């Protein structure tokens, strides 16, 4: 039985090696925050992190995920309080909300490397994630807000360390 490291826990699953990671996460591990949208890597609803990189879990086989650190929306933060999640609430981003786990995970991968993205970088990074409710402008605003919050937190943190 393959073992998965998911959201910091090791869990054994029972599925064929070629099973899309998406269905293993949703059905076997019953973490349903990761969504099925297209099954073809065209919409981004199923986005999770594999070793910190945003990947489409519908296009990732179980075998490819073994031995890597998987993070889903359920594991992004302890209490749903990642700066992006807080920004998503502050900007009242979600409408139907179905794509938003994927949007947040996609954005989190960007901000983990760059907390000062330009609008162009945000668009280029997010363009593969469809939102049928068309909440795009709020997604952009929330990403910028979270990035700013992360920069402030990091600046405050360095000051604290300095003093």
């Amino acid at each position, binding site marked *: 039985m393959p073992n998965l490291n998911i959201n910091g826990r090791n869990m054994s699953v029972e599925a064929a090696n070629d099973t899309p990671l998406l269905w293993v996460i949703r059905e076997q591990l019953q*973490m349903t925050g990761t969504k099925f949208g297209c099954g073809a890597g065209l919409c981004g609803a199923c986005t999770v992190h594999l070793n910190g990189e945003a990947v489409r879990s519908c296009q990732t086989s179980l075998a490819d995920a073994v031995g890597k650190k998987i993070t889903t929306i359920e594991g992004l933060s302890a209490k749903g309080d990642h700066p992006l999640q807080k920004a998503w609430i502050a900007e*009242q981003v979600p409408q*139907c909300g179905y794509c*938003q*786990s994927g949007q947040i995970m996609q954005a989190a991968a960007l901000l983990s490397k760059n907390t000062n993205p330009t609008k162009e970088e945000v668009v*280029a990074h997010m*363009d593969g994630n469809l939102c049928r409710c068309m909440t795009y402008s709020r997604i952009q605003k929330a990403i910028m807000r979270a990035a700013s919050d992360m920069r402030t937190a990091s600046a405050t943190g360095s000051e604290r360390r300095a003093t």
Partner: protein
Amino acid sequence: MNSHVKIPQSTSADLSRRSFLVGTAATGLVLGYAAVPGIDHALAAAPAHFEPTVWYSIAPDGLVTVTCGKADMGQHIASTMAQIVAEELGANWRDMRVQLASNDPKFNDPVLGAQITGGSWSTMMNFDAMSRAGAAGRIALTEAAAGAMGVPASELVVRDSVISHPKSKKSMSFADVVKGGKATKTFTADDLKAITLKTPDQYTKIGVSVPQIDIPYKTNGTAKYGIDVMLPGMVYGALVTPPVRYGATVKSVDDSAAKKVPGFIKAVTLDDKTTTTTGWVVAVANTYANARKAAEALKIDYDGGPNAKLSSESLLTEAKRLQGLSDSGQFFVKDGDPDATYGSAAKVMEAEYTTNINIHCPMEPMNATAEFKGDILHIYSGNQFATRSGAIAAGAAGIDPKYVVMHQMWLGGGFGRRLDADMMVPAVQAAKAVGKPVKVIYSRENDMTMDFSRPLTYQKIKAGMDGDGKLIALSHDVVSAWPTARWGIPDFLSPSVDKKGPLDAFTVNGADFFYTVPNHYVRAIKNEMAHNATPSGQLRSVAPGWTFWAVESMIDEIAHATGKDPALFRVELLDGKGKNDGGAQRLRNTLLAAMGLAGYGTKKLPKGEGMGVACVSSQERATASWTACVAHVAVAPSGEVTVKKLTVATDVGTQVNPDGIRAQVEGAALWGMSLALFEKATLKDGGIEQTNFDSYTPLRMSQLPEVAVNVIANGEKATGVGEPAVTVVAPAIGNAVFNAVGARVRSLPISAEAVKGAMKA
């Protein structure tokens, strides 16, 4: 215009025979319509039993849970209902919670008499009922608090879930009152009607952008959609749908290869007496991945049926043929006599407008979970029309609809797609066949090719102007499949003006505009071929999504042909005479607001850029939100259109949640733009050619223009906001393209080739 529909119920939904009940018990205070006399005694005996029959309850901890009878597909309608209740109840917003209703008829819409969510109707039709429910609760709580405090109820003040007596400085929280168990009061329908509601100047919640209750759950993965339902012992179904959209039959199924897939249970060929589906097979397995593998391994032989040779071209050809017949269709509007006027008109113009097939494709693919438990069929699915979908599920099961319980889930997008009930059929029949709960999930390919799409439409408008360029006659023919007629519910159809039988007003709404045109005909013509080959559905904004494309393009064409400014020509036509009084003025004001906000006509734009206007009374004459748009576009020499800015103004009367309204209007406007430029589905050999987001391509972030949303709240009754802005954008863009480069495009979506072709012409 259609008068509002009421669907007859097997269980009585006659509100006049109900009384409104307020009572307390150990579990809390419950408020709602009680179906039978004497229910207060029954409530005292078994309070929990009545919980599902009510609009909201207050728990002993003071939390107020509102039960929303509307499908919540991202419009935050549950939160809106809670906000209206909270206003009159006097509850603190932090104490408000929401839950979704089952299909119990007690949760039926108070105006529509059914559980259906669409038409941008929910707020306007529930505002009064939710206000009165909230007020009744406040009155009952206040009277109980007065008794407990020993002060007159009239001296009490209710605010933020606290009832206080300023003179004595005594106060009680809602939780205290509920725990005290003394809040008991029964309101008859007449009592409810007699309650004096707050006036807008007294509002403290309505008009405030309180945070939407559902949003936090949609940022951490915990909101439960239909696709997330997990039942003990559940197995999974994957669909195999035929290459033909409708009319195919399964000749044979060879499951020998599927049997080699681990976990495969059974291939179930649907026997759909409801005629919702044709030629569908479900592969059932222990996991969805295995079900999908098995589905792919099935070898199915089809008879393509009568529609197997049809294409978008054949549907359009048939539409043109029908329009050319003098006796086809029925009249929706018949004012004066245009035909007798054209002869004396100084100028006569004709134009044809078309729209291609469009697909809903909400991000959550269609799905349903069915479980037979004893005599009851339980359905778990996010659905916009529980009343009908429950009946379809019953039909698929061969049982009485009263034995179906619909468990409503959050909808991962609706846009009208989930008004339909096709997903019930495979779930029910698979569950029946394997004797276990089954969750059926459509692949995106199933979802797209089996969509109940926005139909291909063909419209022809003829207009006559007098010597001053005044529009004196207009004849408008609308040919399409009839989405609402397909439902088989007579109350959803409207009588025709020429008494030729009922017509589907949801194909012509909007054509009965607020412009004053003395001689005006609108003919609704059913394209039977399209109706059969592409069973159509209601796609966000429905008919006004195509009727205003034609009307608002034609009005622009007339203005240009008669040397008038298109925006000012509209203002002239919105003179508010006769039946247009009231609405026309509101629409005129909205248009002027949009023009002002966009700087229309105030600046010289660079070469290749232009602004275009449109204004609409979507969704229906009786339920309009007055909406106008100024689109600013840049057109490249290749014909490619870039939308630089959409300025939208909308008069919604009263805004419950301003931020929520802005979100809806912006989303709707972008839908309008997506339909105008990016979304096109085509029929070939009887099947929809587009199967996923590589070939059917809604707007992405990189295509986002600047959108300026301006909401006019002038104290009139609250109107809907989910759809109207969809309808105004395509004609505004088309008109802007004309102003930019002189290219008139009359087919949606607007393609670069069409623009380039029209530029040369």
